């Protein structure tokens, strides 16, 4: 069930911190919460919130950095497109993610055509201005960014663009949270969900966490006050053994999300099984381009489904364990020695919102 937004700011920052301390000491055991989204991870470090949190609270970073969870086989498909001479358009932080033979940035350094865009819709304009090139947009991100790709595909259909396609690597968050919740090794007491979920997807998709799985859960904005308020609420959910999904955002947001965006998303895409880096195949967690838009599917157009995924190298990288919260970055043997932001072994160190990168940058 869900409740209206509580007034979390009344106590002020210090008041909330003290309340959290009380709840934790009365809990009688350490509590483990997972912040699902990479933007939360970065905010917790960057704001200095981590340095102010009481003992007895364990924060795990979850699989909510779209860059980090993109599987090596998916990066390999993007690299294959660039190698085939396509003009590959991508959001910036995908550039450095390692596939089995380098990254998009490496390929660009060798002359491949890879460009950064900041919105999906730009790629339609680029395709129209480069009629002699096959232009491919890498659709990466969760249900918050996938609608923008859906709109782009609608535009492609409208303009009947023969030289445009999308490689959809989009994923949805609820299925992976279900998978993580049922992992006994993790023992997660609750989840902090990203605030932009409520703006686009709405929170109904996440109510199963509290109502069905009986985990604490709260949606929070990205400000440290909002995150702290969510942590207080999660702790009191655990203490009272009553689980209820609330929203902690200073800005009023529609609870049902953006119905237009949701509608467009599932008009264009359909759910499919997909691979998450280090976590394996998760049922119904991907967004495949649906039948009406199939001719804009880069994987079909360029025969990428036939590509056999290169075997993941056993290089000691434990990003999968970090992404599922089994490990904090310093517990990985490679962290800070073999794996640094300059010589990243895994994607969690590459991305600006990756867990290992955030630990390394703000907590050396």
């Amino acid at each position, binding site marked *: 069930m869900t409740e209206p937004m509580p007034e979390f700011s009344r106590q002020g*920052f210090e008041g909330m911190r003290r309340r959290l301390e009380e709840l934790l000491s009365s809990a009688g055991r350490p509590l483990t919460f997972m912040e699902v989204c990479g*933007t939360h991870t970065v905010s917790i*470090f*960057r*704001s*200095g*919130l*981590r*340095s*102010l949190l009481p003992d007895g609270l364990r924060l795990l970073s979850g699989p909510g950095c*779209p*860059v980090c969870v993109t599987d090596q086989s998916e990066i390999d498909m993007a690299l294959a497109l660039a190698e085939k001479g396509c003009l590959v358009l991508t*959001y*910036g*932080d*995908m*550039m*450095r*993610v*390692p596939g089995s033979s*380098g*990254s998009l*940035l*490496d390929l*660009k*350094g*060798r002359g491949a055509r890879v460009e*950064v*865009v*900041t919105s999906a819709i*730009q790629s339609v304009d680029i395709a129209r201005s480069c009629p002699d090139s096959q232009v491919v947009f890498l659709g*990466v*991100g*969760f249900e*918050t*960014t996938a609608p923008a790709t859906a709109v782009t595909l609608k535009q492609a259909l409208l303009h009947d663009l023969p030289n445009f396609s999308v490689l959809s690597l989009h994923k949805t968050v609820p299925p992976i949270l279900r998978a993580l919740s049922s992992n006994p090794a993790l023992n997660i007491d609750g989840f902090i969900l990203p605030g*932009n979920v409520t703006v686009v997807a709405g929170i109904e998709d996440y109510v199963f966490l509290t109502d069905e799985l009986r985990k604490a859960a709260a949606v929070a904005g990205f400000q*440290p*006050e909002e995150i702290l308020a969510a942590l207080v609420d999660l702790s009191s959910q655990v203490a009272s053994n009553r689980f209820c999904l609330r929203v902690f955002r200073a800005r009023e947001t529609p609870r049902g999300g953006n119905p237009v965006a949701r509608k467009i998303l599932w008009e264009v895409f359909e759910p499919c099984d997909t691979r998450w880096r280090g976590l394996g195949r998760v049922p119904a967690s991907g967004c495949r381009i649906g039948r009406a838009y199939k001719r804009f599917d880069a994987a079909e157009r360029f025969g990428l489904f036939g590509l056999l995924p290169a075997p993941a190298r056993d290089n000691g990288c434990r990003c999968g364990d970090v992404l599922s919260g089994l490990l904090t970055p310093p517990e990985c043997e490679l962290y800070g020695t073999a794996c*640094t*932001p*300059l*010589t*990243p*072994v895994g994607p969690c160190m*590459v991305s*600006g*919102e990756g867990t290992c990168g955030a630990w*390394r*940058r*703000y*907590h*050396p």
Partner: protein
Amino acid sequence: MSAPDGRRVTTGHGSGGRLTQQLTRRILDLFNFQIEDSNLQIKDPNLQIEDSNLQIEDSNFQTEDSNFQVRDLNFQMEDCAFIGEGMAVSTDGFTVFPHDFPGGDIGKLAVCGSANDLAVRGVRPQFLTLALIIEEGLALADLDRYMQSAAQVAREGGIRLVAGDTKVVPRGAADKLFVTTCAIGKRESPHILQTSNLRDGDVLILSTSPGRHGAALAAARFGLEAPGLVSDCALLWRTLRPLWDFNGLRCMRDCTRGGLGTVLCEWAEASSLGIEIEETAIPSCREVDAVCDILGLDRLYLASEGCVLAAVAPEDGMECLASLRRSPAGRDAAVIGRVVAAHPGMVGMKTPIGGQRFVDMPAGEILPRIC
């Protein structure tokens, strides 16, 4: 493997962070030799190499990394080099995209960039050399415009063009126009301003809000409309001149590529002292914050072209600040932190909510995020 496969130059090598340090070191290592006759006289008596402690720099060579044991080498990573008789030289190449941006263009930038590298070391820029690499097909009207803005800023700064070169390369071999400048001038500060002057307790003053140049470029590159956002690109020597006379002035650095965060990290590493700054004390610009929010960038790492960090002995701190604030480019100047003995080599930051975190040097190219 990602970013550095180690065999090729990537754009990350040009970002001003760690990779740039490594590239610079790779080149400088080749030049790390003693000149046999340390009294070597070059024909022109004004161009005497002072001693074998050749000080090299431009903003491209402003870094140091403890991995490279810079202190074992003779190169000092400063903004410009002193080459005898108080004369100083700096050089810099400019490849900005887009060539025109709110608040300036590549011509203005090329003059300001090299001249400012002198000014932060107490040197008044007097002479300039200018080398152009022009892509075949560049509109002459564009070239005129860029050179007019270079000439105008040189005139305003009292800087004389004394040598130059032009090359035209085939279409595709350059992006419209690359400019390399070299600025030469005479030191007017009574003592040499250098990173090794830093002492425990020094006050850190920032002359204005950081990141306006980088944010203006990012907005232009990614098609964001940011009304009111203008690059801070400007000649600084008149703003900084009043500071040169303070005995307590230790060193200054303009926060160009790599931004304020990189300068702070370099100072901490080079001095083996710690730095503590306070986030709320850093002057802020609403438009920069907005661009950072949208693109997921950090103002600490965005380039400035008119923002200077100065380290001053505590007894002169307030007077230096007041003096900076009297000039238009420094009216938002603020004390943002201090040099401390704790956590040597590291930069700590007190956050607005009273937390603590470290500030690290960016590793590679700074890329906008997905969501």
